[in-house]
C-alpha cells in the first residue's frame, strides 16, 4: 500500500495576533522576525493518520510531500522523524505564489509521477490561507473520490472507511481505494518524534522535483497559472470599546452586568 501525505509549511499559527504584519506591496502576510516555520497542524494530523494505518498494515509505505521553497525541507524532515518513509519536495521558482488550483495541479502531477498511490492524505485546511481547497482539488484532478474532515481513517480489504465530522455529529463513509482523505483535529494529537526516529530520519531519502520533472509548463503553475488573484490584504481593525463591569465582589459584578444587558435589551 502506498500512502502520500501532502504537508505545508506555515508560520507557527500559535503566535499572538499582534505578531502578524501585512506587506501591502507584496500582498502577503509576514510574521514578525523570529517566528518559526512549522508543519501546518492539520497536516501533522494527516501524517499521524498515515502512521496509524501503517500500524495495522505494516507493508504500507508513507511518502510525505510538500510544495514550497527550500526551507520546506524542514517539514519533510519533521514528517520523516514522525515515522514517514520518504520525502518529496516540489520546489521551483515557477511554483512561487501558487493558489489552491496550481497547488492541487502540482501535487496531483507529483502523485501521478509516483504512480499507484492508494491513499492521499492531507489536512482539512492549511493554517495560513485557511482555504480547505487543495485536498478536494487533488482528488478532482486525479479523478478519485474525496472524503473531507476525517476523525478516523481505516483501511480494510482495499476499502477506506472514514468517520468524518459534520456540524452536528459524524458520518461513516466508505469507498474503494484509491481515494483522497482530508484530516481534521478530531483525529487527535499527532505523535512527537522520538530521538531514535529523528536520527533515522536523517538517512531517509528526500527527492526534489521541479516543474519540468513533473512535465508541467512554467506558465501553468505558481502565480502564472493561478486562478485566484490577491488584490489586497489587511489586518482587521478592532475597535476597543469594551466596558469593564466593576464591582468589589462577583455578586456586584453580576448585578452590574445584568443591569447593563437589561438596559441594552439583550436579556
Amino acid at each position, binding site marked *: 500500500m502506498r500512502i502520500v501525505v501532502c504537508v505545508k509549511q506555515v*508560520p507557527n499559527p500559535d503566535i499572538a*495576533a499582534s505578531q*502578524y504584519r501585512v506587506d501591502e506591496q507584496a*500582498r502577503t*502576510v509576514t510574521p514578525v522576525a523570529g517566528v518559526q516555520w512549522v508543519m501546518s497542524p492539520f497536516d501533522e494530523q494527516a501524517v499521524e493518520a498515515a502512521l496509524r494505518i501503517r500500524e495495522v498494515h505494516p507493508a504500507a509505505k508513507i511518502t510525505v510531500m510538500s510544495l514550497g521553497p527550500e526551507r520546506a525541507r524542514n517539514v519533510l524532515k519533521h514528517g520523516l522523524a514522525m515515522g514517514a518513509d520518504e520525502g518529496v519536495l516540489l520546489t521551483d521558482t515557477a511554483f512561487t505564489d501558487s*493558489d*489552491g*488550483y496550481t497547488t492541487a495541479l502540482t501535487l496531483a502531477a507529483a502523485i501521478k509521477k509516483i504512480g499507484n498511490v492508494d491513499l492521499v492524505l492531507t489536512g482539512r*485546511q492549511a*493554517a*495560513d*490561507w*485557511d*482555504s*480547505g*481547497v487543495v485536498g*478536494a*482539488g487533488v*482528488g*478532482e*484532478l486525479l479523478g478519485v*473520490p*474525496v472524503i*473531507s*474532515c476525517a476523525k478516523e481513517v481505516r483501511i480494510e480489504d482495499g476499502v477506506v472507511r472514514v468517520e468524518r*465530522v*459534520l*456540524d*452536528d*455529529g459524524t*458520518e*461513516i*463513509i*466508505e*469507498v*474503494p481505494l484509491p481515494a483522497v482523505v482530508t484530516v481534521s*483535529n478530531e483525529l487527535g494529537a499527532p505523535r512527537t518524534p522520538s530521538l531514535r526516529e529523528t536520527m533515522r530520519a536523517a538517512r531517509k531519502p528526500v527527492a526534489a522535483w521541479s516543474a519540468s520533472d513533473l512535465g508541467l509548463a512554467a506558465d501553468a503553475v505558481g502565480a502564472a497559472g493561478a*486562478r*485566484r*488573484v*490577491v*488584490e*489586497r*490584504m489587511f*489586518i*482587521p481593525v478592532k475597535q476597543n470599546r*469594551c466596558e*469593564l*463591569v466593576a464591582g468589589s465582589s*462577583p*455578586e456586584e*459584578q*453580576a*448585578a452590574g*452586568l*445584568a443591569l447593563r*444587558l437589561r438596559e*441594552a435589551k*439583550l*436579556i
Partner: protein
Amino acid sequence: MSCVLVVVETVHGKTTGPACELLGLARRLADQAGGTVAAALLGRGGVAEELISRGADKLYVAEHAALGEYHADAWVPVLARICRQAACDAVLICHNAVGADLAPRLAFRLGTAVATGCVDVALSAGRFVLTRPCYGDNAREVVSLKTAPAIATVRPGCYDVPASDASRSATVEQVQPECDAPAIRTRIVARKRDAADGMRLEDAKIIVAGGRGLNGAEGFRVLGKLAQALGGAVGASRVPCDLGWCPRSWQIGLTGRTVTPELYIAVGISGAGHHMAGCGSAKAIVAVNTDPEAAIFRDARYGVVGDYRRFIPAFISEVEKLRS
C-alpha cells in the same frame, strides 16, 4: 452579467436563515449588474415559494431521494449541470460543513476557482471581489478570480435576511438528476447526529460559550444552567472539544460552526482569531475572563474580569431575579 446562483441547503425541510441571507446578497449583486438570481434546490422541494419571495427569479429543482441529505458524490454532478445550464457568473454557498466540503469540488469540476469562508462579496468594475479571513482571522485578503463562475462560500451573519415579497414570481425548472454509479462512488454507512437537547446553535438568540479557561467538563454544567436561565444554547471554543469536555458539535469558530446570536457570553475564552471567526457577528459579546489582557476584551462590548466559578452562579441568580 447574466446570473448569480445560490445553492440552497434545507434543514428539516425548511430554508435556513443563511440561505435567505445569500438570496438577499445575490439579489443585490444581480440588481447592480442588471442580471438575475437563480436558486438550486436539491432533494425535496417544498420551499420554492419562500425562495421566490426572498428574491429568486429562477429555480432549478432536482428532486431525488439520494439528494435528500448532503452526499458529495450525488450533489456535485447535479450542481455542476445546473451551473452550466444557468450560465451563472457567480455561485454563492453557505459556509458550513456542507458548503466547505461542496464548494471546492464544484469549483474543480467546473474548471473554475473558489474563495471559501467569505465575509463580503462585492462587484467592482464587473468583477466579483471577495473578502475572506485568513491566518486564523488575524488577517483578511481581498481576492478576485480569473475564471467563471466565481464560487464563494459565505459565512452566516454577514448579510441581513431580505424582506419577503409574496408578489414576486419566478420560473421553475426541474432538473433530472443522475444519482447512480459510476457518479456515486462513496457509500454513506451511517450518520450519528449528536443529541440536540436544545436549539440549534445557529438559531439561538443567546449563546453561552466556554473555553480552555473553564478547566474541565464541570464548567460546562455551570454554563448549561446559565444558558437555561437565559433561554439560550451552549457553545465552546476548540480546546474543550479536543479535550472531550463537551461534544465536538458545540465547537464555534473557523473549523466549527458560525453563529450570529444577539448575545454571546464567552467564558474562559481567550479570543483567538480562529474562534472569533465563528462568533464575531454576534450583536453583543460579553467576556468573562481572569486575564484582563485576554484578546477577547477587544471584541467584547462588556467585560468581567474574574473567576467564572464565582461570577457565573451570582449572574444566574441575577438573571433569575430579572425573570421572576
